[in-house]
């Protein structure tokens, strides 16, 4: 039996153990996080560099959510999220360079499309084949995709090869151009809120109930007549679109994109954000991204630490996986609440 199923089963046992309806923590965490994010640019008004940092955190949070949709909700260990992130980033950069176009109303949907198409292609290959894929197969499949993309791009002169693409045309709305700062921040925050709310509705819907059932026992759902792999594919494509959106915003914001943005390195970073914050919660990845990015911002200027920063991150991940598999959020939110309740059953209560 593969890992997500046994893990979900253990969680379900825990849920059954605590039958009392408890005080709900999750909505409070969500509201507090949202209010903090909303207030951030006003608090940091004068410190442009910190607004820039916060914008990065918000954009990367969207990216982390895309991984959570794969792993936390559909049991796909995707080591290839950066492929969609980076590809969309390259596409908007190229559209800016070659077509001189960067209207966000055009390019952001384009980024969704790019992420969606690529993930659909990968899903068709990895998920919808004749044989039901194992989670190891999926992990390696996605990892290979990201690695291949990184190597391909770093040798391709048209997209800047190893140098990457710089001086990316500024994202625009009408004649207004977004440089780093509060305006850009709010665009990113709007993207986060839309993605978050959409994902939240989806995973608590009847569709989400099927996903929860799949996590419990995939074979049983299949016997009920659900096309399990199709559900996974839909989630994978959605996640790809979201990764694409964040990748486009990231490119615009940094003004630079390179092969590193496509590869396994960044893909793994998304895994760390998500597991550190708490997977399968949506808000966990946001908190994880914030915590890790803030820490690395503070520590990056200390030479003694910078050298070991990747090692420290690795150790943190190890500790989380071994001792706190539910992540930061697991410390304050019960298992029952993390998994949530669905539709009619809750109303009947």
């Amino acid at each position, binding site marked *: 039996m593969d890992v997500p199923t046994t893990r979900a089963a253990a969680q379900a046992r825990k849920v059954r153990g605590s039958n009392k309806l408890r005080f709900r923590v999750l909505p409070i965490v969500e509201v507090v996080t949202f209010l903090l994010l909303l207030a951030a640019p006003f608090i940091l008004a004068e410190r442009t560099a910190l607004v820039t940092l916060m914008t990065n955190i918000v954009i990367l949070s969207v990216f982390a959510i895309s991984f959570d949709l794969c792993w936390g909700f559909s049991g796909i260990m995707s080591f290839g999220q950066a492929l969609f992130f980076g590809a969309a980033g390259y596409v908007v950069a190229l559209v800016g360079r070659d077509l001189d176009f960067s209207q966000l109303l055009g390019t952001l949907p384009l980024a969704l499309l790019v992420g969606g198409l690529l993930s659909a292609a990968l899903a068709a290959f990895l998920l919808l084949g004749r044989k039901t894929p194992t989670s190891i197969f999926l992990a390696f499949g996605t990892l290979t995709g990201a690695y291949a993309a990184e190597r391909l791009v770093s040798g391709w002169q048209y997209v800047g090869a190893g*140098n990457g693409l710089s001086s990316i045309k500024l994202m625009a709305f009408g004649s207004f151009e977004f440089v780093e700062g509060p305006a850009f921040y709010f665009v990113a925050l709007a993207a986060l809120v839309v993605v978050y709310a959409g994902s939240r509705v989806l995973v608590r819907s009847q569709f989400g109930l099927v996903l929860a059932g799949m996590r419990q026992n995939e074979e049983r759902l299949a016997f009920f007549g659900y096309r399990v792999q199709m559900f996974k594919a839909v989630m994978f494509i959605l996640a790809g679109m979201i990764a694409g959106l964040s990748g486009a915003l990231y490119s615009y914001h940094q003004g630079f994109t390179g092969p590193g*943005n496509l590869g396994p390195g960044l893909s793994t970073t998304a895994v760390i954000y998500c597991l550190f914050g708490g997977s399968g919660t949506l808000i966990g990845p946001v908190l994880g991204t914030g915590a890790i990015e803030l820490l690395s911002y503070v520590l990056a200027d200390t030479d003694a630490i910078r050298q070991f920063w990747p090692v420290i991150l690795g150790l943190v991940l190890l500790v989380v996986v071994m001792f706190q598999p539910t992540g930061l959020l697991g410390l304050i939110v019960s298992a029952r609440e993390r998994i949530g309740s669905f539709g009619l059953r809750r109303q009947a209560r």
Partner: protein
Amino acid sequence: MSETDRTRGISRRHFLNGAGALTAAGWIAGFTGGWVLRPRWAHAAGPIKMGIATDITGAIAPSGNANWQVAQFAVEQINTAGGILGQPIELHLEDTASDPKIAVGNVRKLIQERKVDVVLGGITSAMRQAIKDPIVNRGRTLYIYPQLYEGQECTKFLFNTGPSPAQQCDRLIPYIMKTLGKKRFAMPSANYVWPQLLNKYARKVIEANGGEVVFEEYYPLDQAEYSATISKIKDGKVDCVFNTVIPPGLQPFVKQLYESGFQKNGGVLSCVYYDENLLNYHPAAEMEGLISCLDYFQAVDDPFSKTLQQGYAKKFPDTKYLFTAGSASTGMYRGVKFYEEAVKATGGKLGREEVAAALDHAVLKEGPGGGAAMVPGHYHAKMNMYIAVCKSEGGKTRYDVIDKADMVDPREC
């Protein structure tokens, strides 16, 4: 600060501490983020904030550290002499880590957090292309790029203080062809933008002088096996190798070329980024006869350059990061001094437009290898160019300067 305390220059002790640590450990970071060197005395208008963005860590750290040391050296000279119209310069360093992805974020710190008036730095062309946008367009700040490079950088508010392909090739290649009588060239190169554009220019000069390029090939930067290249050089009867392979592929290539007996049989190895730092990458014997063309060599017989070297040696005794031309150090020195001249001309105004307008026709009477002058409207500088040949004697290498051209035009933009 009392009047008697107004020692001109950066606090001696503060500075020696910094310098001591720098020579001991290469570089240490301040715990407040980045590295700042503050002048000792204050000025009503505050200090002029100069940002240095260079590769302190990563693959080309040796050049980056030399750049940073030269920047400190030049700024200390200015501050010791009373600053620019009485205003001292405060130096801010951010590490670009030989990685454009990291650099973009760090350079933004210089602009947004430290709010510097000018940024100098970047060594590779990939780095310049990555950081010029956050500096010039988004950051609305002046940018000075100090390294020799492939040319064609004509961005407004971006000034180049290193030599262009025209400055490096126009005299060197005719010299190789006419004086040394070499006609058949090979161009083994690393696969990135600088070799590609430089070769394009060099090929034009070679063909205009009646020579022939036998082959022009690009290799991955970390290639270690060149036997195919070497046999092509032999079979094609190449008599001059115009090399743009860079480390780490460089050492195996030069070794294999030497062992094939190319130089012994009268072949000439030419490499236009070769300075004193780079000779140490190889055994001395392999370097015998190498020809380079740069804006400065330590062997140049110029009293001002000699004083500069002495001052630098005094400030950074036993440093392994030399004040040379190939690692953007001379360009860095010129950049700092050009900026000083420009601010003097604006009467202390630091606005980007005003300084850029003054910088456009700034002139340096003296510098490493002689003076330099910006060519108005062209964002590049005229400077003296030298051709030098490497000699090895008893396991030691040195350059002998064999030709000098005065105030060569960059012919860019």
